[in-house]
């Protein structure tokens, strides 16, 4: 009994670096403030928010969500492969994650271009001010994530991560899951919920 408990305890070790968890906590707090600001303003300016939301394309939002979630899945699978000493497969899965994230980047940039073309910029109204702030700040995180995924894929290919030592990979994947998580909250908040 005690042995299995110990085994359980060791498998419950915090993956990645404690510093990364602290960073994620700080980042999530920042996003939480942004999300609360959006939610409260929606209550105060209900009409404007529901009218402006009609101008967003929900199917694009759904495609964005799927591409990001798929990327997160690939990253998680890559980590699993590395833990089983299959670095090459891990590297390929990280490349797949990178590709899927690039789809997100491309979709998001087209959406931005479309909205800017219609004159729905940062200063159009409060809804769009917050839309650009929330999604724009998140988008910067996605761009950083793309760089991290690429860097990790390269290190993985060079077998820099081993089952015994891959805390850097865990930290990177953790960051990427955070970016996923935030988008999963942003998508319904900004595109769907009225």
């Amino acid at each position, binding site marked *: 009994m005690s042995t299995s408990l110990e085994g359980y305890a060791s498998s419950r070790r915090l993956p990645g*670096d404690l*510093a990364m968890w*602290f*960073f994620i906590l*700080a*980042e999530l*707090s*920042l996003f939480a*403030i*942004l999300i609360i*600001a959006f939610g409260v303003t929606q209550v105060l300016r209900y009409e404007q928010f529901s009218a402006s939301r009609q101008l967003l394309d929900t199917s694009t939002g759904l495609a964005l969500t799927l591409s990001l979630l798929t990327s997160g899945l690939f990253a998680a699978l890559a980590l699993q492969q590395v833990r089983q000493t299959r670095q090459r497969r891990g590297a390929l899965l990280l490349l797949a994650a990178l590709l899927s994230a690039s789809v997100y980047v491309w979709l998001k940039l087209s959406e931005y271009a479309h909205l800017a073309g219609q004159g729905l910029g*940062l*200063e159009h109204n409060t809804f769009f*001010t*917050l839309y650009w*702030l929330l999604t724009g700040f998140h988008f910067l995180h996605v761009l950083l994530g793309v760089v991290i995924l690429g860097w990790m894929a390269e290190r993985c290919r060079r077998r820099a991560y081993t089952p015994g030592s891959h805390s850097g990979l865990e930290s990177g994947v953790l960051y990427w899951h955070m970016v996923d998580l935030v988008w999963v909250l942003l998508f319904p908040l900004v595109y769907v919920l009225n």
Partner: protein
Amino acid sequence: MTIMNPHLKFQSQAVAKPYFVFALMLFVGQILFGLIMGLQYVVGDFLFPLIPFNVARMVHTNLLIVWLLFGFMGAAYYLVPEEADRELHSPKLAIILFWVFAAAGVLTILGYLLVPYAGLAAMTGNELLPTMGREFLEQPTITKIGIVVVALGFLYNIGMTLLKGRKTTISMVMMTGLIGLAVFFLFSFYNPENLARDKYYWWFVVHLWVEGVWELIMGSMLAFVLIKITGVDREVIEKWLYVIIAMALITGILGTGHHFFWIGAPEVWLWVGSIFSAMEPVPFFAMVLFAFNMVSRRRREHPNRAASLWAMGTTVTAFLGAGVWGFLHTLAPVNYYTHGSQLTAAHGHLAFYGAYAMIVMTMISYAMPRLRGLGEAPDARAQTVEIWGFWLMTLSMVAITLFLTAAGVVQVWLQRMPADGAALSFMSTVDQLAVFFWLRLVAGVFFLIGLVCYLYSFRQRGRVPVAVAAAAA
């Protein structure tokens, strides 16, 4: 000067000493002018027309900036050779630049005191490239050019040392901070006619210094001293440093928005400024956790207790002054009433003292005994006096902050909250605040006593060392 100092890893680190000594001399000047101004708040014509209030204020704030710059440069000259594991590229250049910067600084301050400001502008040819007349950046254009020259020479010297030596996270963060400091200062040369635009660029210097790149300098100095006094693994300390600087930059750069609330900038800044600067306390809080965590995990008992106290003290005071007192009035709906009030002054005092004055004194406390050839630490008596100085200065500054905060709250109540017509005028409000200003002045006198204690601790240190140095040799 050929005598070897056995307590320095590299002999060229010794160039830090004149920088630290001169920084502390200017610090004394800053406090004296602070006291003059503190008295002028309640006795309006004190020293008039010899030193008008606006001149005293200019000298007080300019001395602060210049002594901190001297402190940062001294810190860099001490820290970079040790981190790079080699001698400084050119100790001679460092000494020449010291004298150039010191002479320029002294002449500028004398100019402020002896010549009317408009006369100083005319004398120094301000009309050729007008940069004067803006708060904190009052220096004549020629002084500003001098600062750039000194900064370039300094960065060259430090940069060459780093390029040829070992590259560590600490020295890279320090270098990034110092380059940022020099780059953002360049905005002080751009002075658009339009006041709103002028304010944008002015904040690029002021805000991106103190809430951006200076935080990198502070973080790296703190990390360096913590490695030395705690013996904790560099790897652990560097990881914390990464998190701190990432958060400082994410929140600090966009946090600039909190200065664009009421200067005619677009409405989006109300959101950006409020939200991102609401998170600005986070990196300061991380520094508190960092310092206390490292000290509690220490692998050795460093004999310099005073340096440890400064290292922990600077993080707590910076968190309170920059983090908490900044947050108090950073949200746009609050700032609508509080901007430019005594609350701003309260925040400014505790933030500058806690984050920057104290980090420089942390470095001085750690490095000075070695620079003076006394060993790792001064004797127990000198440390006791230094610790008295620490508490007197810090508690006095907290008192100054609390009195100014009380003054600020009353000011907002009387001058900002009432409807037009019912609100008191600025000067009538100031009359109502006199009691707080008197109390602040008393706290200021205690601060000066603390500073005298602190300086006196250096004299005490001179006694023991002979034996210590002999033993070490």
